[in-house]
């Protein structure tokens, strides 16, 4: 690695040294608790759309914790956060364009 790369890697490592283990243990515990809630909800005989909404809400929360703390994005510069997250969300949202077609198949009984 050249000097700039080494300096950047050292800066990142310096940030890592300031994080105690406790913070990560809390995040891990929160992720386990949310997983437990999800499993509990799976047996509540809930209306599917409602259950899907709650499960996806919890999954997004879990994803946020993993990306923010475990993947360290919370401590990156703004440009990094915006570049990664906006491109990801926009691309995944664009895939949804096809989803209404699935409903059309059912509603119009197209086979």
């Amino acid at each position, binding site marked *: 690695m050249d000097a700039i790369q080494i300096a950047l890697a050292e800066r990142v490592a310096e940030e890592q040294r300031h994080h105690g283990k406790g913070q990560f243990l809390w995040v891990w515990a929160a992720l386990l608790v949310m997983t437990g809630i999800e499993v509990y909800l799976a047996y509540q005989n809930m209306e599917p759309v409602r*259950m899907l909404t709650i499960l996806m809400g919890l999954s997004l929360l879990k994803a946020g914790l993993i990306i923010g703390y475990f993947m360290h994005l919370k401590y990156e510069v703004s440009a990094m956060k915006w570049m990664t997250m906006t491109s990801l969300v926009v691309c995944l949202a664009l895939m949804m364009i096809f*989803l209404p077609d699935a409903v059309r198949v059912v509603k119009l009984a197209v086979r």
Partner: protein
Amino acid sequence: MSDVAVHHHEAMADAYEPSLFGTYSKKIGMWLFLLSDSLTFGALLWAYTYGRVSTPNWPTPFHSESIRNATVMTAFLLTSSLTMVFAVRAAALGNAKAQRLWLLATMACGTAFVVLHGREWSNLISEGLTLPFFPTPPGHPGAEFSEVAKNVPQFPSTFFGITGMHMLHVTIGVIYLGIVALRKWFIPILLGLWLVAWLGTPDYSPFHYGSHVLLVGAIVCGVIVWLKPKLYDASDVEVAGLYWHFVDLVWMFVFPLVYLMSTKII
């Protein structure tokens, strides 16, 4: 001579602008790879959602045994992310021994995940949930999931497609961490694992052929460590950690969508 080298180094450093993203290029490269890979899983999960919405009688066949198994798998994966974070931290602190131990712990959790998942697949296949190109297991022509596979073929296709893709990622992750932790000494271990997986599974199991992923992994790793033998530093561990956390992250969506939304409630 050394002064010349230092001046040359500084001149090279001045020739480049500081990174816009405030971090080193290896890490940015891994983030870009993960963004593209997340679209792979995004496409698979959207395809699954499309199939589910457009199929009125989507089956919900997973018994409590499957859900319990998948929950334990999730716990293993979450714990592996914690041990991975500790490995990255140990690497940043320059504690090589702790770094290696945490990496090995992460690999152990990842391996447990794959083994449990393999057991789950084998159970489902023996109960009739299968794909046309899977070898036919002996017995059980009227097994519980045969009707599901026959009437809603989208279910086994999406289930095996998504979970198989994820299992492949976990396997690659374990190999990646093995090379970072043990370097060339991991290759004979990997070859041993391949032989155990290949010879230890019956020839009607998809894992009998799937185990060759380990052989391919050993060959690729052999080429990599031969072309670029090096001691992996803190930045390499951090980049490997990003990949590992991504694998964990994807499962946070696969588990509720594929398993929990298909729970059999009696």
